[in-house]
């Protein structure tokens, strides 16, 4: 058993990336994720790995595209408004089927916003700003330990499905230090020798491209991608449910905010109110079916986010009825406190459910 270390989320991600063989990092500074690049700049140079202080986030994500095309494990990290700059290449990487790990440590938006913590990039991550039929696998850690676990998982899923993967981290979590254990990477290595650009030696040359002037071929390509996304949805959907089995009130939340919500559930249970927490760990694929099952027996579903209701849309799609779905949230700043959430939940219940 490895020993516990007190690590900031950002540093934990950087260490986990190195641990699982990330050999290339390209990035551009932006608060609150800069420590990732700072930490890796030393470690990667020391180990003769690839590290470029890119000229822009556009440069960084395209360097990542190039590195991914040769089969390297590559990561870039950024934040919110700068992740906006990367959307084009994420769409390319989906069509090219290239594994890139992108860490987004969120700050407040829209536009430049500020470095305050926020969860405002749910839509950017799960819906995206790129063009075409594509999806990006998205993992949402709620603790520093999960930052480690999900960094490993992000690399694994990216390689397994040849698709970009986003680790969506709350700014608060990137900056917060908690004890965590840097386990060895638990995932197996994925063989990429069948497609990586390593030079056409003793084999035919390979081409990686998204342009496809043949309508039939392009249709076929997009349908193949769709089949892959179906498989990802079937195999990789992940969530946490806490006290949901007999719950009359389901609270939904993602990221580190879900922990405060868990405390709310505990408080309600002490008061005799049957509350439960449902937390998606994968934002894409979103656990619609699991939520639907849990929600069918609940009287109210209350979604709580540090934004103005971005996951709410998916929650409603899962519940398939918005008559009993409510929302609590605020755009940015100090994380919603347990007490604030309790007050808001009680208000919703009082207004809508005389008998709970």
């Amino acid at each position: 058993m490895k020993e516990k270390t007190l690590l900031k989320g950002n540093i934990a991600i950087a260490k986990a990336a190195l641990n699982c063989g990330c050999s290339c990092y390209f990035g551009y500074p932006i608060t609150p994720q800069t420590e990732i690049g700072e930490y890796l700049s030393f470690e990667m140079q020391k180990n003769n790995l690839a590290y470029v202080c890119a000229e822009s986030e556009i440069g960084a994500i395209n360097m990542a595209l190039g590195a991914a095309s040769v089969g390297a494990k590559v990561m870039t990290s950024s934040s919110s408004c700068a992740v906006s700059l990367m959307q084009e290449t994420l769409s390319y990487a989906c069509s090219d089927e290239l594994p890139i790990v992108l860490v987004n440590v969120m700050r407040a938006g829209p536009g430049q916003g500020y470095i305050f913590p926020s969860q405002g990039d749910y839509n950017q991550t799960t819906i995206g700003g790129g063009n075409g039929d594509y999806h990006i696998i998205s993992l949402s850690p709620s603790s520093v330990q999960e930052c480690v676990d999900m960094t490993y998982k992000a690399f694994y899923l990216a390689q397994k499905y040849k698709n970009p993967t986003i680790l969506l981290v709350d700014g608060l979590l990137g900056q917060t230090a908690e004890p965590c254990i840097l386990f060895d990477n638990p995932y197996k290595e994925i063989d990429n020798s069948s497609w990586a650009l390593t030079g056409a030696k003793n084999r035919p040359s390979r081409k990686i491209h998204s342009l496809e002037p043949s309508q039939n071929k392009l249709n076929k390509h997009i349908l193949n991608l769709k089949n892959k996304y179906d498989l990802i949805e079937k195999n990789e959907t992940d969530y946490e449910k806490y006290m949901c089995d007999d719950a009359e009130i389901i609270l939904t939340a993602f990221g580190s905010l879900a922990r405060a919500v868990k405390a709310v559930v505990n408080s309600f249970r002490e008061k005799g109110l049957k509350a439960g927490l449902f937390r998606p760990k994968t934002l894409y694929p979103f656990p619609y079916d699991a939520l639907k099952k849990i929600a069918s027996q609940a009287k109210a579903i209350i979604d709580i986010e540090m934004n103005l209701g971005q996951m709410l849309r998916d929650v409603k799609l899962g519940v398939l009825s918005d008559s009993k779905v409510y929302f609590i949230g605020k755009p940015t700043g100090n994380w919603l406190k347990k007490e604030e959430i309790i007050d808001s939940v009680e208000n919703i219940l009082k207004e809508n459910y005389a008998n709970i």
Partner: protein
Amino acid sequence: MIKNFIISGSGGQGILSIGTVLANIFMLNDLFVSYCPCYGAEMRGGAVNCEINMSNEELLSLQNEKADYVIALNQTSLDKFINKVKKNGTIIVNSSLAKIEKTRNDIKYIFAPLTQEALKLGNIKIANSIALGILSKITDNFSIEKVKKAYEKILKNKTELIQKNIEAYLFGYNYLQERIQ
């Protein structure tokens, strides 16, 4: 059992250092802990603070409205955080750099001339560790081995500096008792 701490002061007073030392002490004692440095508009400029939360079960709230214990190493941070102290909570004030004045009567004040005491010990920079010693005395009784180990994690192999800080920590730890006697 959950306890919340805020450590505050100005840049150069080692606020974040003793914050991480305290967080490490909790970790080494197998407690759940989170440490968050000041985060937001205050990042640039003189004021520095950090929030530490400790619990003997899974820690659920990373950010809290108020703290059980606040350390304020100067007047600005005293003014800023005095209302963040929970009712019946405690504030440790560096009276070398802040007025001895009680604006609340529902909390406990500990005034200590930390900067002067640190100078007497030979290093102005260890006022923070004296404060940490005082805090330890009134919160938990941690073994000095673990405290030392926590300092080693932060100060790595700066042996002399570690020793100086431990000395300051112990001075702080015994400070109240000596004053009471």
